[in-house]
């Protein structure tokens, strides 16, 4: 058995499940997985259906599409409507509903030029192939994707590209966790920390949270054994009353993260305030273009501003993102809001918590 197979081995997983049962000893654990990929992994692997009832799983604000604010969606849709603009985006955003049910998919059908790319570097090629147009890459994603976007911007500068821009909608995870934990309604007792984000930022940014709020936190991978071990570690720390930040994904995440990627990130961007869908403004939780790269900022260069926009009526994604309400308790879930008729992005994104519940949970859909 190679190490990869071992991470999916039913026997090893069952052993850890038994240890979780043992560690629970009458206590309960409300843990939140911060990352959308964890949400999907928990369901897809069947781990979710095997957990003891005393382990309550809450989905968090870790799907970059889901936390993109309504006003940010409105802003890029406004740009998509301009005849000299080509929007370059990852596919996740195509169906995200904006004001009045608009979306990139609908805009494309109405004539907007939208290119789905698999890497931000592909957007540079689009800009080079269309010198008479302005190519705007939608910079959505956490610390995981932001360094690649930053490297793309740096390369655009090196190549002297004057028609490539980025909408910097990136979000940073630790300030959001701080904001969530300071909410008195929040009842999370453990964090399954995001593997990919942590590969960039390392463990340090989480330590003040563990100290301030006394919350067990485990950086986890995405295989079944990774998920189960993280839950076991949280349960044990809670029982022992020794909350710490543990790196249980050492095969990918160095404790110090990736300093090289961070250097590129903070050459192009500086931290700034950001709007989170369903949560609102979180100080220092976003990235804005640094002075040296302002020419590539779509807001500055193309005269776009974020306008106040009303939340979608009835949508409770905010409470879902905070872990206060499980997706299926939202009054719209599987009724007015389905993957075919999504009211909010949590039902659109492949990593959205509502979409995951709807797609995978047998007794809810």
């Amino acid at each position, binding site marked *: 058995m190679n190490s990869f197979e071992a991470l*999916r081995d*039913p026997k090893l*997983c*069952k052993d850890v499940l038994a240890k979780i049962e043992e560690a629970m000893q009458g206590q309960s654990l409300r843990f939140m997985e911060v990352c959308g*990929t964890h949400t999907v992994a928990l*369901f*897809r*692997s*069947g*781990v*979710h*259906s*095997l957990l003891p009832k005393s382990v309550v799983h809450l989905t968090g604000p870790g799907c*970059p*599409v889901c936390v993109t604010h309504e006003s940010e969606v409105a802003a890029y849709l406004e740009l998509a409507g301009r005849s000299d603009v080509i929007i370059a985006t*990852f*596919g*996740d955003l*195509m*169906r995200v509903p904006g004001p009045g049910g608009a979306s990139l998919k609908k805009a494309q059908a109405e004539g907007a030029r939208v*290119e*789905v*790319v*698999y*890497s931000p570097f*592909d957007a540079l*090629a689009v800009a080079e192939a269309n010198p008479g147009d302005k190519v705007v890459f939608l910079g*959505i*994603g*956490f610390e*995981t*994707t932001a360094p690649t976007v930053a490297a793309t911007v740096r390369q655009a500068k090196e190549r002297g590209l004057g028609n490539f821009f980025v909408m910097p909608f990136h979000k940073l995870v630790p300030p959001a966790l701080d904001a969530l934990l300071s909410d008195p309604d929040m009842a999370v007792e453990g964090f399954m920390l995001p593997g*990919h984000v942590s590969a960039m930022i390392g463990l340090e940014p989480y330590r003040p949270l563990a100290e301030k709020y006394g919350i067990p936190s485990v950086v986890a991978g995405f295989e*079944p054994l990774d998920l189960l071990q993280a839950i076991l570690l949280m349960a044990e720390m809670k029982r022992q009353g020794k909350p710490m930040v543990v790196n249980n994904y050492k095969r990918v995440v160095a404790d110090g993260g990736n300093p090289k990627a961070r250097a590129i990130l903070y050459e192009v961007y500086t931290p700034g305030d950001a709007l989170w869908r369903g949560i609102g403004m979180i100080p220092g939780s976003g990235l804005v273009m640094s002075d040296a790269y302002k020419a590539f900022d779509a807001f500055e260069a193309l005269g776009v501003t974020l306008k106040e926009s009303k939340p979608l009526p009835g949508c409770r994604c905010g409470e879902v993102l905070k872990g206060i309400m499980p997706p299926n308790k939202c009054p719209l879930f599987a009724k007015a809001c389905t*993957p*075919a008729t999504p009211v909010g992005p949590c039902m659109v*994104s*492949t*990593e959205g918590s509502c979409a995951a519940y*709807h*797609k*995978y*949970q*047998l007794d809810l*859909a």
Partner: protein
Amino acid sequence: MGNKLLLDQGSGGLASHRLVADVFFRHLGNSILERMDDAALIRPKGPLAVSTDSFTVDPIFFPGGDIGALAVHGTVNDVAMLGARPLYLTCGFILEEGFDMDDLERIVASMGLAARKAGVKVVAGDTKVVPRGAADKIFINTTGIGEVVAKTAPSGHRAKPGDAVIVSGSLGDHGLTVLSHRQGLSFEAPVQSDCASLNHLTLKLIKGLPSVHVLRDPTRGGLATTINEIAQQSGVGIALEEEAIPVKPVVASGCEILGLDPLYLANEGKIICVLPEKHAAKALTIMRRDPLGRDARVIGRVTQENPGKVVLRTGLGGHRLLGMLEGEQLPRIC
């Protein structure tokens, strides 16, 4: 660069006749087609199975096939899934002005080869050339006609609790091949399309087994969507074993990179067969003797529980819903 197709060649005049004679008759010709009457005279013995499909794949050439072979295999397979012997095809071409003539010839030659292998004749056709930009290179529509051989034609409505569910081989090969070779995508998986006509294999199943309830080819939407259709059409539950579902490692890892699920990717040379459990072993023997069914496996069973739904039992012994595909699969952010 070879010659380019001109608008004249779709005009119906002499240029069109030359195109038909030089390209289409040369590769697809037979005594019925070459009569050039307004319609083909055929004498099948009913009941008949009829199916039509349009092909607009991008890229038009991909490892393991091309749009022409696909246009034959796809319709032959749809007819075959009713327990029929496909006999005749019609094909309509919509071509973009400026299309490369060498590419057209290569595609038509590929159709001719695929038709001969499947044992079907192209008996009627149509060609239109539209101005540049009005179509994307080449669109092909094919209609297939076949004689139903099975006593009771297999149908998505006939799955019954207690039936076994079999697939004829690995899933997702075609979908990943096409996606990974799509223009502008830097990722190219070392995998090729499974594009093939399945009619010889389905006939062996129909003739060799007393009862086949369902035959379906899981094309667009993949296994997950097709198996959901069967569950809904028949009003039954279907329980699948994740571990038993064959997916090549290269497809699994390619999907992981792109954030796709192989169970939703298109297949163009695979069969889903649902039949009474007691005949499953014989069905596997028949399939595995054929190169197109070499990797056939039982992947699940039909149940009374959860009617209309498909439940996947994961490798860990957990379970989850396996729903239909909503829209198209798109790559994720992280």
